[in-house]
C-alpha cells in the first residue's frame, strides 16, 4: 500500500499498538533545554528513575541564559541562575551530552540539532519545546512535548501517542524576489487560521519548497506549531544529504552509505493519500507581516489591516479588535510606513547564516534609523563564528545593530531582558502574542529582509525597495 513520508517514519517506530487505542512509538533522540529540561531531569531522578539511553539525550542552554558578551551563570532574569545550575547538575548526574555556556557548539536547540546532524532523516526526535517541529525540515518526525512526556521519553525511550491526521501543503510555482520561507508560512497561517493545521502532521511539498535551502525549510517547519499542527516535515533530498554529510553526528563511511540508501526511500509514494490537502500558489505570496497578536493576523507588507467584516465569526472579530487595541492600530491602517521602535533579528525561526546574510545584504553601507534599537542574536555559536568569518558582524555593527552571543534572547520574555511597554518591535521570531517580548510590547513578525529594511527606514518597509534584496 502506498504510504506518505510520515506514515513510513511512524511505521518504522511502532513498538506496539496499545489496548487503549494509543500507539507506543520509539523515540530516537531527545533534546532538552535549561528551562524545561531541568525540571524533567530533576523530577525523573526524584522518582528514582534513570535515563534509559543517555547517549540519545542532548541538552543545551538557550532560553534563560543572557546573550550579552562575557555572559556567565548570572542572568538578567531573576533566579535564572537556578535553572542553569540545576540543568548542569542534572545533566551531569544523568550522563547526557550538554552544550553549556562557553561551548562552541552551544545555541538554540532547534538550530544546533540540525547543525550537528543530531536530527537526521527518518528519526523521531522530541523536545519539551513547542518549536521542535522546526527539525522536521530534515525529513524527521520531530515534535514538542511537555515535561512529563519528556520524563516518559527519557525513562522508556518511547511515547504513547495518538496517530495524527495527515496533511499536505503544496507550494506550487516559484517565489517572487524578496519573498522567503517566513513569508510562505505566515501566508499559509493567514489564509487558513492559527488553528488550520490542528491535529495534523503536515508534509510541506511542491516546487517552492524543493527550491528552498535547508535553512529555509527549517524556517518553514518552525512555524507549523503556530498553525496548531502536530508537526511539519519536508521529504529529504540531495540538498538534505549534502547538508548532513560530514556533520558531527552524521553517519560516516559504510554507515553513511547504508543510511543514505534508507533516507532515499523516505518520500511520499505516488498514490498515497492525505486527510487534508492544501495547494498554494507561491508566486502570489508577498513579503508578509503580522498586524495583530496571533500569527494569523497578517497581510502583505503593502496592504492595510482588513476591516472587521472580513472575519468569519464573532469570536474572530472580538479577537481582532482586542488585538488592534493592544497593538495601538485600527482597521484600514496601512502597514507600510508604520513607525517602529525596535528591530530584532534572532530566534529559532530566522537566525541561521542565510538569514543573517539576507539582512546584511540590505544593511551593508547603511544605518539603522535614529531612535530604533536594533539587535541581532545569532541562533548558535557556530552561526555566529561563520558570520564573523564572512564579516557580517561588522556590517551589523556599523549599521547600528548590537551583535550578541547566541540564545533565545528577546524572542520571549522570561522576566529578564525585554522591550518596553507599547514599543513596536519588528521581529524575525515566531510569536506575536500579547507581552511575548515584554509586558505590553507590540510585536510584528516578518522576514529578516523586511526587518532589516524597516530598521533602516525606521518604519515598516517592503524589502524590495532595496535593490540588494534576494
Amino acid at each position, binding site marked *: 500500500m502506498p504510504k506518505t513520508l510520515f506514515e513510513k517514519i511512524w511505521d518504522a517506530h511502532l*513498538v*506496539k499498538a*496499545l489496548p*487503549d*487505542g*494509543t500507539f*507506543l512509538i*520509539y523515540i*530516537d533522540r531527545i533534546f532538552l533545554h535549561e528551562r*524545561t529540561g531541568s*525540571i524533567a531531569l*530533576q*523530577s525523573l531522578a526524584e522518582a528514582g*528513575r534513570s535515563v534509559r539511553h543517555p547517549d540519545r539525550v542532548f541538552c543545551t542552554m538557550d532560553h534563560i541564559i543572557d546573550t550579552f558578551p562575557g555572559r556567565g551563570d548570572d542572568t538578567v532574569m531573576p*533566579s535564572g541562575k537556578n*535553572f542553569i545550575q*540545576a540543568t548542569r547538575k542534572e545533566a551531569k548526574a544523568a550522563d547526557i551530552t550538554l552544550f553549556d555556556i562557553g561551548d562552541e557548539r552551544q545555541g538554540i536547540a532547534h538550530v544546533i540539532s540540525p547543525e550537528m546532524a543530531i536530527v*537526521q532523516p*527518518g*528519526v523521531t526526535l522530541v523536545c*519539551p*519545546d*513547542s518549536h521542535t517541529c522546526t527539525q522536521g525540515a530534515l525529513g524527521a518526525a520531530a515534535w*514538542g*512535548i*511537555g*515535561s*512529563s*512526556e519528556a520524563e*516518559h521519553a527519557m*525513562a*522508556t*525511550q*518511547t511515547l*504513547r501517542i*495518538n496517530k495524527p491526521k495527515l496533511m499536505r501543503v503544496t507550494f506550487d510555482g516559484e517565489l517572487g524576489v524578496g519573498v522567503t520561507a517566513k513569508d510562505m508560512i505566515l501566508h499559509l497561517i493567514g489564509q487558513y487560521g*492559527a*488553528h488550520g493545521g*490542528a491535529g495534523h502532521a503536515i508534509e510541506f511539498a511542491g516546487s517552492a519548497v524543493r527550491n528552498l535551502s535547508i535553512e529555509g525549510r527549517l524556517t518553514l517547519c518552525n512555524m507549523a506549531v503556530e498553525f*496548531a499542527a*502536530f508537526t511539519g516535515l519536508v521529504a529529504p533530498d540531495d540538498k538534505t544529504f549534502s547538508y548532513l554529510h560530514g556533520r558531527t553526528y552524521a553517519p560516516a563511511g559504510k*554507515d*553513511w552509505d*547504508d*543510511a543514505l540508501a534508507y533516507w532515499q526511500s523516505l518520500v511520499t509514494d505516488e498514490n498515497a493519500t492525505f486527510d487534508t490537502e492544501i495547494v498554494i500558489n507561491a508566486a502570489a505570496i508577498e513579503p508578509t507581516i503580522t498586524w495583530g497578536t*496571533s500569527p494569523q493576523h497578517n497581510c502583505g507588507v503593502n496592504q492595510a489591516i482588513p476591516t472587521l467584516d472580513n472575519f468569519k*465569526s464573532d*469570536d474572530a472579530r*472580538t*479577537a481582532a479588535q*482586542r488585538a488592534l487595541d493592544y497593538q495601538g492600530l485600527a482597521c484600514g491602517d496601512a502597514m507600510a510606513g508604520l513607525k517602529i521602535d525596535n528591530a530584532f533579528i534572532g530566534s529559532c525561526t530566522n537566525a541561521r547564516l542565510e538569514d543573517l546574510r539576507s539582512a546584511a545584504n540590505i544593511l551593508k553601507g547603511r544605518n539603522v534609523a535614529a531612535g530604533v534599537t536594533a539587535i541581532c542574536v545569532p541562533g548558535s555559536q557556530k552561526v555566529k563564528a561563520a558570520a564573523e568569518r564572512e564579516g557580517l558582524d561588522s556590517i551589523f555593527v556599523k549599521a547600528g545593530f548590537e551583535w550578541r552571543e547566541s540564545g533565545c534572547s528577546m524572542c*520571549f*520574555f*522570561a522576566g529578564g531582558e525585554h522591550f518596553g511597554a507599547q514599543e513596536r518591535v519588528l521581529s524575525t521570531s515566531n*510569536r506575536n*502574542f*500579547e*507581552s*511575548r517580548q515584554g*509586558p505590553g510590547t507590540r510585536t510584528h513578525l516578518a522576514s529578516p529582509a523586511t526587518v532589516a529594511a524597516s530598521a533602516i527606514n525606521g518604519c515598516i518597509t517592503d524589502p524590495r525597495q532595496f535593490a540588494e534584496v534576494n
Partner: protein
Amino acid sequence: MQAFTCHTGVAAPLLRINIDTDAIIPSREMRLVSKKGLAEGLFASWRYVLPDSREHNPDFVLNKPAYANTTVILGGNNFGCGSSREHAVWALAEYGIRAIIAPSFGAIFYQNCIRNGILPVELDNDQVHAFAGAVAENPQKNTVTINLKHQTVSTVNGMNAHFNIEAGHKEMLLKGLDSIGLTLTFDEDIRRFERRDATMRPWL
C-alpha cells in the same frame, strides 16, 4: 496522579480564542525549578493590576466573587496554544482547576492536562457558549458537573451535553495512572524493537 471520575464545581467563562500558555502562566512567573508554587502566577497578566504586582484586577473573571472557587474553565477555540510549558497545567491544577471545556485545545497542552489529572473536554463552540450562559446568572448555584465515565457535562438547571475522549486518555484519568509505570510493563516489546532496530539502523 489525581484520578478524575466525576466532578461538580463552579465554572468560569474565559471565552477568548487562542488563549496561549504564556497568558495562562507568564514566563516571568516561573521562578523556581519546580512544579510547585505556580498558582499565584496563574493568568498573572490579567489577574493582577500590574505585572509583578499582586493587586487583584477586579474586572478579571476569576477575581469576581461570583466566580470564587472556580474549578472548571469554559474556554475558547485553541485553548492552551503556544509554548509547551507544562507549568501552565501545573498552575491550573494547583489553583484547583479540574476540567477545561473548550471547542479545541493546543495539542501539547491537551497531553499535559491528561498527564496531570485535568480533564480537557471538547464541546463545540455553541455548546460552550450555552454553558457559559447557563451558569452566568448565579455561578455559585448553577454549578457544572462533569462525569468522565459517562462522558457528559451537565448543569443543575438542566443543560446536558455528551463529549468524546480517546479510550486511552479516559482510562489514564479515571484510574489516575502513572504512564511511565504503565509503559514499562511493555519493556519486553521495547527491547525487542531495540534489538531489531540495531540491525536495521546501526548508524544511529
